């Protein structure tokens, strides 16, 4: 059985993957940039557009990090505006369960689903850091181990609110004067350790019933959370072996919750660089890597592992002889990747060995070790690679992360998508109108 591929576009994020120095790089905040990318994705019949989240500007060495693209819109607001310039494209927003209230978020997603005719999706993320909490009433009060507890109960509470309307209450019969068949529609009670909600939800049932639910965490807890309640996972495992392992693991957890494998889609993030030939693409990819890792960015990356100020070092020179500082305190704040370097001394030893063996400068080393290019090649090569990974159960499709705003998806849409369509593995037109339908999920 040949699988159909799901494709989505990730609006380029606020990290060094996004190249702002290129002459083609446009605004990251003007609405026209969002509209451009959404329209491209819709023309290419993509499943959805995806927006990430970051609720505090990143810092390094106690200062606002100034080397990457910065500045984002409010997720709900920009997605609601995009609903006006698209008809079918799913609209997925990342919304934190720590710095929001379930009643308000449920209302915003139900509204977005109404205003888009059933195209809303919610990527539920958790957070605990006090650093981000400084921007909010609640502050960073949540102990790390409680974040999934809160996320689970936040989502359960939101589901109760979505389900408090069944969809048949509004009669609006002018002659008889009956607006509502059930005068208690929306009635909800919820009380637990985190939330105490009592009243009526004031948004009637939306076209999809509730937004499509995404989950992005990779920990055991995160996978379990996804298996229990998500419709799709936004993962990092885009290679064949890692992807298959992750895919089998997560899909294997579904039976425990009475769910079948097709009820949860695995969609890794993927970058791409295209060229007329494979060789041309490889050359372009090298250039993109140099744009992504400027000398200043290389030093900043190194500081995140060394956990100390390395501003005096020459990015075109050798690695520092001093060792990383090991400890709880980190020079970089508001950045998830830093927590991935669990053993900085081991990483430093590895990098030194690599740099010595290949005679790499700091910048060359960072270009080498932080490479995140998933697909590089001619359109035919990339189309084949995507299809192979999906058919081999390494994923159900990909969330593509272009490195240029707003035109970074145009070439992919114009060259790779037609090839996938020719192979019969990607839709040539939308069959349904809701995102659940695009994703092949049964109606609720």
């Amino acid at each position, binding site marked *: 059985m040949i699988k159909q591929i799901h494709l989505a576009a990730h609006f380029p994020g606020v990290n060094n993957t996004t190249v*702002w120095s290129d002459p083609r790089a446009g605004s990251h*905040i003007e609405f026209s940039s969002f509209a451009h990318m959404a329209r491209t994705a819709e023309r290419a019949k993509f499943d959805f557009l995806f927006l990430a989240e970051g609720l505090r*500007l990143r810092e390094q060495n106690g200062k606002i990090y100034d080397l990457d693209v910065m500045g984002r819109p*409010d997720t*709900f*607001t920009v997605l609601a505006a995009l609903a006006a310039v698209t008809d079918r494209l799913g609209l997925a927003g990342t919304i934190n369960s720590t710095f929001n209230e379930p009643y308000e978020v449920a209302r915003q997603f139900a509204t977005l689903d109404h205003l888009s005719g059933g195209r809303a999706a919610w990527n539920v993320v958790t957070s605990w850091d006090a650093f981000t909490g400084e921007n909010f009433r609640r502050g960073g009060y949540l102990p790390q181990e409680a974040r999934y507890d809160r996320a689970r109960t936040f989502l359960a509470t939101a589901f109760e609110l979505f389900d408090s309307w069944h969809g048949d209450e509004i009669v609006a019969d002018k002659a008889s004067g009956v607006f509502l068949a059930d005068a208690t529609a929306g009635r909800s009670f919820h009380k637990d350790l985190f939330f105490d909600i009592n009243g009526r939800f*004031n948004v009637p049932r939306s076209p999809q019933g509730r937004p499509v639910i995404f989950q992005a965490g990779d920990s055991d807890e995160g996978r379990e959370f996804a298996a229990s309640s998500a419709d799709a996972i936004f993962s990092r495992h885009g290679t064949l072996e890692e992807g298959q392992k992750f895919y089998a693991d997560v899909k294997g957890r579904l039976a425990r919750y009475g769910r079948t494998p097709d009820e949860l889609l695995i969609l890794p993030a993927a970058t791409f660089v295209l060229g007329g030939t494979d060789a041309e693409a490889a050359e372009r990819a090298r250039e993109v890597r140099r744009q992504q890792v400027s000398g200043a960015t290389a030093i900043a990356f190194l500081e995140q592992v060394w956990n100390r100020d390395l501003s005096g070092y020459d990015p075109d020179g050798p690695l520092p002889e001093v060792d990383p500082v090991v400890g709880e305190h980190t020079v970089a704040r508001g950045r998830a990747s830093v927590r991935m370097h669990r053993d900085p001394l081991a990483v430093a030893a590895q990098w030194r060995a690599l740099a010595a063996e290949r005679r790499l400068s700091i910048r060359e080393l960072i270009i080498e070790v932080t490479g995140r290019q998933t697909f590089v090649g001619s359109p035919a090569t990339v189309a084949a690679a995507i299809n192979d990974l999906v058919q081999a159960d390494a994923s159900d499709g990909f969330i593509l992360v272009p490195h240029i705003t707003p035109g970074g998806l145009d070439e992919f849409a114009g060259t790779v998508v037609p090839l996938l369509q020719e192979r019969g593995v990607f839709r040539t037109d939308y069959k349904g109108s809701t995102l659940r339908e695009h994703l092949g999920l049964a109606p609720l």
Partner: protein
Amino acid sequence: MHLSVALDGTGWHPAAWREERARPAELFTARYWADIVAEAERGLLDFVTIEDGFTVQSSRADQVTGRLDAVLISARVAPLTRHIGLIPTVVVTHTEPFHISKAIATLDYASNGRAGVRVRVSASTEEAALFGRRGPLPGSELLAEAADYVEVVLRLWDSWEDDAEIRDVATGRFVDRDKLHYIDFAGRFFSVKGPSITPRPPQGQPVVAALGHGPGAHRLIGQVADIGFVTPRTADHARDIVAGIQTDRPVHVFADLVVFLGSTPGEAARRQARMDERAGYAYTGDATAFTGTPAQLAGLLVQWQRAGLSGFRLRPGAIPDDLEAITRGVVPELQRRGAFRTAYEAGTLRERLGLGRPASRYAWSRS
């Protein structure tokens, strides 16, 4: 004269949804809101406001129940309109100033400088119970918290100077971080660090509005609002209210009126009576109701404006009937009297209101 309409469901009368041309079954669709905001724009109005709240409007099965988030409705119609200002209502008592600041900034980007926000406090026990964070605060505390809230929102809008984004390839810097500012707000109700994650919006500071019925709310208007919506009973009363709003900043005072219009005074009265009968009671609200012809209303507006009002926010009793009577009846009457624009000029909502574009407070403090 500045003229706006307050949009709420099928209109302000609780039985408006039963009028022949009402579209109650479409209240939760984008098309409905796109159509009525487009009608307001055809009438060259300054802006629309969109009501909001977290609770259901009524516990009665014969009245409209449920509403969509007003900020998102505004965002949904922003790309479909070109000139009209969009001012959603936001309940400040139960929301995060950080989220709302970036939401309104984003609305300002999506509308090319036509965004505003009407801040509303909530003393309702029912509304508080939907959050469960705390019980309702007393009125004076609610207003004090609202003042802090607006202060935080304004500081966040200012927290990126206009030219903070530099894209300096030579040094690898995307922003000049000296032009990004912590707002370091610490008040009795909350603390917010900043800066915003959203760059400074096109208007610098989108328009802030508030509705007030008494001295406490009028004080808040004088303190933080660009536009105050007030509810005078007569022209003299309007004059007293305007005089009572103490401020050292330009503040536009708009009078709110609920309007029931008809081609003759009798028809207008019959329409209102029909809706009252269907509701089972004579509708009265916080604002004075006007019942009559578009020409009569235009005359009253011109007369009341002399009391020092900048303009009016008309609340259509029923939509679309009273909305169209405003855009196709009242507006031409005002134009005939030379009291209202005959075309939109290019520009932002602030510019239309003569408010100018404020520099970031942090740019001032730095230089």
